[in-house]
């Protein structure tokens, strides 16, 4: 027969068989080799140990009859009798099943049909990965993430309520006092509580961690400021412009507080004549690590030197301190056209180049 002796061929087949069994035994994932009638030709050692069965009760037996029919699973029947004959291969097919010996398991099945030359029949390789623990861990992780979100929201809710309590108490005090000056200061303190709350809320909405996109953040913040501070009766518009950029949440918090301070200040002092169409523009631009925040109004402009004309001068101090924290410079330009306050962070200050 084609120059190869029967014995030589037998040896080769026996070697191939030994090799195949060796491979099957080596893989850590339980593997079954089935003939076309779904009878077990070989099983890996991992199969015996994972499913607590022995070779005597396995080899040569029908798959569905193994271990008192514990593999007679409807989804497995679909896989082996329908999907595999049609498609030849199936990977990542998950089956949840209650196994009498080992309890409820989630098994990830990989199946492949092997054809032989001459069409002498087919063999199915069935790999079974026990993914029960992995799925439990995934579910636990999802549950923890959900709990974290709930907790964060609950915390946010409590902070908002606490700030509401503080705001309420300050305002009740403001109404109770006789002194106009004291009332003014209490109302000012009340506004600051609101502005800190507005910044916190927008920061939370922009995502608690990581980089904050400044333009949408400031836009939302200004929307909220316009809603609470301007009202419908005053014809003042508040816009956010600029190329934008991103910042850390800590930087964004400082920027937000600066914007709030300066917008409140402009609303309080810039527009004496309510008939004129007032405008406040907040702009943020960033080039590399350098950025510039500016708050401009078209109001009455400079009066007595500083940008914050509040009685306490607290606004000026707050803006300067926040700018210092951001390693930025505060500059005020005021004229007949209004006031512009710029907060500039420049890593490389321009040097005067002199000709030699």
């Amino acid at each position, binding site marked *: 027969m084609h120059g190869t002796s029967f014995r030589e061929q037998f040896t080769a087949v026996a070697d191939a068989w030994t090799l195949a069994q060796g491979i099957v035994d080596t893989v850590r994932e339980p593997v079954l080799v089935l003939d076309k009638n779904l009878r077990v030709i070989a099983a890996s050692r991992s199969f015996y140990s994972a499913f607590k069965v022995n070779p005597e009760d396995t080899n040569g037996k029908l798959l569905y009859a193994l271990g008192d029919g514990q593999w007679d699973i409807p989804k497995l029947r679909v896989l082996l009798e329908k999907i595999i004959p049609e498609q030849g291969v199936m990977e990542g097919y998950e089956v949840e099943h209650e196994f009498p010996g080992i309890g409820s398991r989630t098994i990830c099945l990989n199946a492949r049909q092997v054809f032989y030359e001459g069409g002498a029949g087919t063999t199915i390789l069935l790999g079974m990965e026990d993914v029960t623990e992995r799925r439990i861990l995934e579910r636990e992780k999802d549950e923890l993430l959900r709990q974290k979100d709930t907790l964060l*929201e609950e915390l*946010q*809710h*409590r*902070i*908002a*309520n606490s*700030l*509401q*309590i*503080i*705001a*309420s*108490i300050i*305002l*009740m005090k403001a*109404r109770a006092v006789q002194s106009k000056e004291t009332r003014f200061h209490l109302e000012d303190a009340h506004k600051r*509580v*609101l502005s800190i*709350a507005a910044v916190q*809320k927008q920061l939370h909405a922009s995502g608690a961690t990581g980089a904050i996109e400044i333009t949408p953040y400031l836009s939302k913040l200004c929307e*909220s400021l316009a*809603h*609470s*501070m301007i*009202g*419908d*009766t005053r014809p003042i518009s508040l816009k956010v412009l600029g190329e934008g950029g991103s910042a850390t949440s800590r930087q964004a918090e400082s920027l937000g507080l600066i914007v709030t301070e300066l917008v409140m200040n402009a609303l309080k002092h810039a527009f004496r004549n309510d008939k004129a169409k007032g405008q406040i523009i907040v702009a943020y631009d960033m080039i590399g690590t350098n950025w510039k925040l500016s708050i401009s109004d078209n109001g009455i402009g400079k009066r007595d030197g500083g940008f914050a004309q509040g009685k306490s001068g607290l606004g000026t101090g707050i803006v300067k301190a926040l700018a210092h924290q951001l390693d930025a410079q505060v500059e005020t330009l005021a004229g007949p056209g209004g006031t512009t306050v710029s907060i500039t962070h420049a890593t490389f200050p321009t040097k005067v180049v002199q000709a030699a």
Partner: protein
Amino acid sequence: MTDIPANALIVVVEDDVFERMGASSMFLDAGYRVLEAGDADEALRFFDTNADISLLFTDVSMPGSMSGSDLARHVAERWPRVGIIMASGRPRPHKLPLSMLFHDKPYAPAAVLRQAREMTSQLG
């Protein structure tokens, strides 16, 4: 007539004592008459016995059989002329009808009072 909102009657519903006092004093100071309720059931008893209530100012998350949004929906159905303003430390409930105004806590009294004035002067 209720063209001048100063006479209008407002129900303030809030389970937190300080917040309730704060909201009441805000409305009282603006010249309204105020009924204070600690939960939805108490608020509904006011509605049952006072035909001239023109505004409901309510918290959203409250203990008791009804939340603030349940109360608002109920009032909107039974007393459709009553204006509704809500405030919460949580985001605006999704299913809230647009006609119901909403404020994040801490709210700006000026903004709440402005809306209250508009709602109460639309009546009568």
